[in-house]
């Protein structure tokens, strides 16, 4: 004991004080912590503003779910890919064996691999629906041009990622896929061959390219995430387009994103129809045109994507939604049909009827964007637009 200090009294004071302290319950405590963090790093207010309160046009149809769905699939792909990468060996002598090991020996390895493979197909299906929805309702028009362009960038990155993933198992199809696609670059005048050797890291498709494809296949999804983030920033800046294609002017035309649309998404996550596509539709554009001239074929294939970048300036019509564009509506469905024909022809050998159906499809694809859309912009008489999203005011 230290003389002069009554520890017993102290202790009693403390315990008494502890008993009489103002009662703060756990939820309040958490709330205070949340506020403390939010004051310093505003993640909570950001999440509330952008994920919950975010004003969404109240008349969105199910077609507006596909952007979010694509985001979910991206996460599924990254997660399943991560587990696959733990067992995969990027070397020409071991790649195929390591994939077979995943299929046979790794617990549920086959499930993870098939989720990853079919997930890639679903990713494209979902993205195509997302893109055609944008085309139908004019979502690419002012003020959402940058939003659209960022989407096309994501689409390009997705195709590159998918192609590199296709090569990784190093089976026969992978090898010839890598050979054919990298050889496309040899069509570039003067420097083509040098570029191809640079891509290969040698003079043939061999170990170096498999190794770097693995590295890039791992990297690209994170680049996609970054562009997706920008895509979302651009989206939240101007808000979603809607089936009527007119801007919102009144707060009653909007509802909070959550729970109205958040809950909807769950339904589609579990009840998407099981469809499988073999090839991204656009690859089929290459086949017919590569026959007469490689350079022309390659140029056309890349232009098929590039034309999407300038789409907002090809379609000058001030009306967004095809609901009020009596002619565009028909041309849109013809384009959808042509793209399906292209996808179908692309999965067939390039001969006879498939060659011609692909040629016609490819020709029409460009004709639609370069000729029909600018022509429609001034020729077509759009229907009168409603003034509001609200049904009673639509007239």
């Amino acid at each position, binding site marked *: 004991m230290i003389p002069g200090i009554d520890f017993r009294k102290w202790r009693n004071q403390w315990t008494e004080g502890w008993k009489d302290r103002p009662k703060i319950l756990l939820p309040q405590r958490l709330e205070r912590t949340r506020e403390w963090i939010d004051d310093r790093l505003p993640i909570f207010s950001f999440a509330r503003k952008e994920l919950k309160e975010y004003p969404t046009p109240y008349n969105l149809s199910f077609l507006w779910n596909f952007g979010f769905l694509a985001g979910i699939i991206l996460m599924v792909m990254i997660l399943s890919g991560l587990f696959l990468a733990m067992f995969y060996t990027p070397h020409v002598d071991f790649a195929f064996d390591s994939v*077979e090991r995943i*299929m*046979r020996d790794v617990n549920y390895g*086959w*499930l993870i691999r*098939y989720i990853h493979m079919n997930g890639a197909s679903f990713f494209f299906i979902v993205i195509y629906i997302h893109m055609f929805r944008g085309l139908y309702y004019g979502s690419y028009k002012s003020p959402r041009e940058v939003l659209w362009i960022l989407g096309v960038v994501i689409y390009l990155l997705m195709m590159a990622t998918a192609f590199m993933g296709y090569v990784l198992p190093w089976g*026969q*199809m992978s090898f*010839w896929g890598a050979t054919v696609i990298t050889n496309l670059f040899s069509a570039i005048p003067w420097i083509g061959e040098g570029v191809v050797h640079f891509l290969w890291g040698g003079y043939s498709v061999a170990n170096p390219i498999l190794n770097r494809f693995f590295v890039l296949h791992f990297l690209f999804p994170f680049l996609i995430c970054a562009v997706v983030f920008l895509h979302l920033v651009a989206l939240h800046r101007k808000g979603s387009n809607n089936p009527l294609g007119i801007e919102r002017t009144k707060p009653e035309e909007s509802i909070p994103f959550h729970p109205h649309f958040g809950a909807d998404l769950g339904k589609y996550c579990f009840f998407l129809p099981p469809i499988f596509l073999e090839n991204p539709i656009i690859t089929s554009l290459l086949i017919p045109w590569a026959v007469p001239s490689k350079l022309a074929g390659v140029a056309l294939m890349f232009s098929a994507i590039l034309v999407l970048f300038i789409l907002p300036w090809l379609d000058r019509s001030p009306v967004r939604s095809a609901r009020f564009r009596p002619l565009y509506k028909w041309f849109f469905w013809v384009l959808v049909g042509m793209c399906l024909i292209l996808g179908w022809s692309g999965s067939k*050998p390039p001969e006879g009827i498939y060659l011609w159906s692909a040629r016609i499809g490819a020709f029409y694809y460009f004709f639609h964007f370069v000729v029909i859309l600018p022509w429609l912009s001034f020729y077509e008489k759009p229907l009168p637009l409603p003034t509001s999203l609200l049904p009673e005011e639509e007239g």
Partner: protein
Amino acid sequence: MKALLLFLLLGTPLGVKAESETPPLTQQLWSFSGMRGTFDRGALQRSLQVCKEVCSACHSLKRVRFRELQALGFSAEDIKTFAQSYEITDGPNNEGEMFTRAGLPSDAFPNPFKNDQASRAGNHGALPPDLSLIVKARAGGADYIYALLTSYSSPPRGIKLGENMSYNPYFPGHQIAMAPPFVVDQVTYADGTPATVDQMARDVTTFLAWTAEPESETRKAMGW
């Protein structure tokens, strides 16, 4: 693309052009086809006999380990005995020498030949492919394998076969280096099933479909 690759892979080494049309594949009714298909255990167990006595004389099955045969309905003891009937080259030992020992359940089916060159030397220059994935690796899958095994015939008039070649309308180029693998009663099935060529081909095809996709039953059960 697939057809082109197959042509490049199989057609060109033989250097022969298809002189007559390949008949279309007949779709067989397999125990494992469809969304709820399971492998016929009887066929799987019988086929192991054919596999050991016929196929493995020339073909390797490097991705299948003896222990995996439990899925065919064999007990761990059966598999141990079965594995012991194979001789496995192992090593090097502490003296730096390779040695042989009896097989263990953790071993894969051994390759009947030391390497690809030895395999070619023993098979008139042709390389018998590894059979682990053959059903997945051939267009037409199980139907193709079955058709190939059962459709050996004498060549039609006007077709001259190469040396040591057999005529098979389903093989690309119609000339195949594998001699007709089955004759009636080549094996004596333990369960008393008559060993017709058709029966053996059916059993072996079922087996190879299993080796190509051993996860197929679990997958279908889970998906259903």
